[in-house]
């Protein structure tokens, strides 16, 4: 059988998918593991079906930016490793990696998930900067949701390293029990549209055959912190309303997995 966009589209019209899942069901297992890297201040490995991503948090002390001297900062980077798919090549990040990093970044940054002022050590001189690196281990679709879940888990698991009170040098080999000042816990859910049907958690095949997608990052109260529309087809207000409803509902599912894991 030749599987192409038409196959996926026709199946969707009947509410069906190639792997037999209902349209709004995630693959199994959804598995979260923390502290997979002792060298990171916080780390996580997230598996959704066959998709596996890792996220690691590194903390460093830097001079705050001039326009926010009393605040720390965050940066999120994504690496689509050639290890994780035959589609990826070595070299500088392509647009797919850049979009993944920026959408994940906005979900966390714009929710003001981290209390940036609490990251400040000495105003104008020294503040903590949080760098989250997301790497793909096996890309079998839906990196947006997996990356966001891994990033939040790694942030929650992170512990500050010891700082020498005399020299101000960081001792990365010793962690304190102090965690990051998290105010909110945003998670992204991406809804895909094909043939006027909406579905979640695409496989690679489905990712290559959709009309439009919308990533919705929302916190535990259902407040939306970032949106990203993708795909060639436009969306109506009605569709967006339905997509956001699904996203808020599915975020609860992912949040449940995360809370269960971190106890």
């Amino acid at each position, binding site marked *: 059988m030749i599987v192409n966009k038409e196959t996926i589209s026709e199946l969707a019209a009947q509410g069906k998918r190639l792997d037999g899942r209902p349209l709004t069901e995630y693959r199994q297992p959804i598995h979260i593991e923390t502290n*997979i*890297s002792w*060298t990171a201040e916080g780390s996580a490995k997230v598996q959704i079906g066959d998709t596996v991503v890792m996220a*690691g*948090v590194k903390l460093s002390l830097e001079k705050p930016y001039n326009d926010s001297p009393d605040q720390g900062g965050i940066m999120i980077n994504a*690496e689509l*490793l050639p290890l994780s*798919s035959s589609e990826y090549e070595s070299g500088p990040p392509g647009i797919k990696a850049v979009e993944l990093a920026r959408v994940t970044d906005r979900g966390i940054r714009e929710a003001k998930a981290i209390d940036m002022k609490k990251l400040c050590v000495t105003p104008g001189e020294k503040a903590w900067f949080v760098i989250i690196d997301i*790497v793909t281990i096996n890309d079998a679709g839906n990196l947006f949701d997996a990356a966001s879940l891994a990033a939040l888990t790694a942030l929650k698991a992170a512990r500050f390293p010891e700082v020498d009170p005399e020299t101000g040098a960081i001792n990365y080999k010793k962690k304190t029990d102090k965690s990051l000042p998290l105010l909110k816990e945003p998670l992204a859910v991406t809804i895909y549209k094909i043939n006027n049907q909406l579905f979640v958690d695409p496989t690679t095949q489905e990712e290559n055959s959709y009309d439009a997608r919308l990533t919705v990052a929302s916190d535990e109260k259902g407040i939306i912190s970032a949106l990203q529309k993708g795909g060639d087809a436009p969306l109506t207000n009605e569709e967006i309303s339905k997509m956001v409803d699904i996203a808020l509902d599915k975020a609860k599912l992912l949040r449940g997995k995360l809370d269960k894991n971190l106890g």
Partner: protein
Amino acid sequence: MAYTERVDGRKIEELRPMEAKVRVIPNADGSAMFKIGKTTAYAAVYGPRELYPRFLQNPERGIIRCHYGMMPFSGSGERIRPGNSRRSQEISMVMNKSLEPVIDLSAFPNAVVDIYVDLPQTDAGTRCAAISAASMALADAGIPMKDMVSSIAVGQVDGTVVADLSYDEEAYDAIVSDIPVAMTHNSKEITLLQMDGEISKEDLMKSLEMAKIATEKVYETQMRALKEKFSNANNEVEK
């Protein structure tokens, strides 16, 4: 000899605890995870596939290409900038040389087998873990191999020859030498040999003898993981 008790309490020839698993990356043609102490390497093999640009092709046989990389959060100090460094390029090159002698790609002219190794956490011995993982991933991918390659570091810490140096031993405040070695299992030939530090010829030869025993332990771990996978595969067929 001043160094009688190892920093982490191991015996002189004792390796750190190892874990290995194959088929950890479903997208790849072959894959493996190899963990020793707090160093973890993931390896994925893609190919044989067509090699571009064409001028790199060898019409007589396929080639292998190793790509070694530390994840940005995998260093024990500051974040590592992603992308190639001089260090990662050199390690990729010596990995290639350590695996090439056992691989027979004469049936795949003009093709390439890409081997990607990425490490989420490191604590010394990263190139050895990378080679041991890569060798397993190649076997898992069914690439024609004449022998298995197993790798470990040996060396000398303050006058004592030891196997599988930890980071604390590499950084020990005395005369230290670190010798990463890769060895073929059947022919007991050395396919990777580097060294830094200071060592006498006598201790060097003693270290290389110890490497034979140490790589054998790595080999056992590698084979156990490979056999596990193939026995599981048989069970699946029986069902």
